[in-house]
């Protein structure tokens, strides 16, 4: 199947600053694709070039078979957009915003009242935009991004500034968008968000894409280390652990062992060793690397810095 978004060799500069350089990737139909990286890495610039809000200096972009620069109005009929740091008129009511947005599209909008209900905004429909909480504003922006029943939805730093509870609620909403058969393109600097939400992610830094894949594949490729922490009073334990295939280090603090190794099979090997030697354990935990570790490895610094 043809990719929904094709980006090839895109470069965008602002004066002497190169915001995005030689960026190429594809987004497939029906997936949640995440562009992840620290603030200022070029995420928003890339997204806004794809949305047709900015023109790249070089490179080609095709979205739903359209050129986002020359066919921007045609494209906007078929996409839904949530922008970073967007606002609405302070005193516009929630239902008025939804009603206004519904009138902007050629194709018949979906039922605004139902949309507000799904997003938990029904009892806020008469509230002014300025009186909404951060989470409610974001949910309204999601409603506006979905009002034209788009094939492709863009979400830029959707949950930044929200508390963990609102964040989780919004993740569920985004999964719901995918379940309706739509494609989602999002940016985030939260690795947890990318890991839980995205089918595939592209890691971007200093305007360049470093790697693209499924989150677990990225972790497997760049951070093969596995760690098992367990507790046992068996005197044969330490010796047996050192014989596990792939083991790199065994450290012990009182009855607690930390066993480090690498490879997808390492945890299985540890379990195998325990059962073969009939070692009785009172605690067993695995510590697996995540996208945060991948980012640290690839860039040499944490995403928060």
């Amino acid at each position, binding site marked *: 199947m043809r990719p929904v978004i094709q980006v090839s060799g895109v470069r965008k500069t602002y004066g002497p600053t190169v915001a995005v350089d030689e960026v190429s990737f594809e987004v497939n139909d029906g997936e949640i694709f995440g562009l992840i990286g620290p603030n200022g890495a070029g995420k928003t610039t890339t997204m806004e070039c794809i*949305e047709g*809000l900015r023109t790249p200096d070089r490179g080609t972009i095709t979205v739903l078979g359209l050129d986002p620069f020359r066919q921007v*109005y045609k494209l*906007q*009929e078929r996409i839904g*957009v949530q*922008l970073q*740091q*967007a*606002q*609405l*008129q*302070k*005193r*516009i009511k929630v239902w*008025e915003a939804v*009603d*206004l*947005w519904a*009138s*902007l*599209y*050629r194709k018949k909008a979906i039922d605004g009242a139902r949309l507000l209900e799904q997003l938990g905004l029904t009892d806020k429909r008469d509230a*002014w935009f300025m009186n909404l909480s951060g989470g409610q504003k974001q949910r309204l922006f999601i409603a*506006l991004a979905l009002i034209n029943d788009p094939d492709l939805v863009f979400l830029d730093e959707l949950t930044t500034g929200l508390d963990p509870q609102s964040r989780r609620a919004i993740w569920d909403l985004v999964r719901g968008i995918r379940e309706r058969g739509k494609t989602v393109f999002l940016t985030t600097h939260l690795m947890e968000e990318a890991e839980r939400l995205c089918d595939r992610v592209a890691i971007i830094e200093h305007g360049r894409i470093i790697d693209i894949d499924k989150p677990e594949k990225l972790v497997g490729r760049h951070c093969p280390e596995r760690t098992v922490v367990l507790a046992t009073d068996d005197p044969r334990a330490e010796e047996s652990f050192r014989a596990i295939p792939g083991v790199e280090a065994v450290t012990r603090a009182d009855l607690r062992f930390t066993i480090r190794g690498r490879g997808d099979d390492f945890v299985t090997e540890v379990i195998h060793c325990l059962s073969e030697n009939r070692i009785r354990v009172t605690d067993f935990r695995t510590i697996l690397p995540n996208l945060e570790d991948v980012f640290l490895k690839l860039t040499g610094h944490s995403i928060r810095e």
Partner: protein
Amino acid sequence: MMLRGLWKLTWVEIKIFLREPMGAFGAIVLPVLVFLVAGRVAGGRLSTPSLAASNFIHVGLPVLASLLIAINAVLSLVTIICIYREGGILKRLRATPLRPQTILTAHVIVKLMLTAATLALLVLAGKRYYPVGVHPPLFSFTIALLISTWSILSIGFLIASIVPTARFAQPIGGFIMYPMIGFSGLFVPVAALPPALHAVARALPLTYAVALLQGVWNGDAWSAHVGDVAALVVVFVVCTALSAKVFRWE
């Protein structure tokens, strides 16, 4: 269609405007109040005026009042566009099939309606204070004022396109608009100005607005002011084209 969403946007913007207590009060109620108070104070003296004073009260004052309302509308348009730009509202609207022209047109319609409403209230309030026998052609005058406002609004777009932040919008707009009144021929006839200033006056759009408004107020036929209307249309076309080129959405 280009105008998709125009009426809904216009309607929403009117409602939003009315929800802003100071905005509606300042733009509509305040001018009428000032006018009423001034009329009450001057009322007794209007019956036996000197010829010059009478001429200003009968023609100059209504024209000045109308122009101030129009300029007020322009300045508030400039401010709103700047606030919308700074807040990312323009950018959010742009990420829809809504055309830029539609957004501007909606705001222009709101401002024109505001101008017309304020003017209507002023006329109603002023009826008491006009000496008997003065019957300005109100319908034609309203049309003339709307044409003038439309043209002046286009200067407003241009200012709104260039002004960096909302904080500067009002002062810069005022700095550009108000001095124009001085050269517009309202207080001193253009013909009486020194030749150098004469040229300045001819180059300023407000001069044509004043000529049109004064003439129509005095009962001139429209045919006598084709040149003024044409000049205002040219100003509109030039400013609109320029601002479309330099307009910044964010």
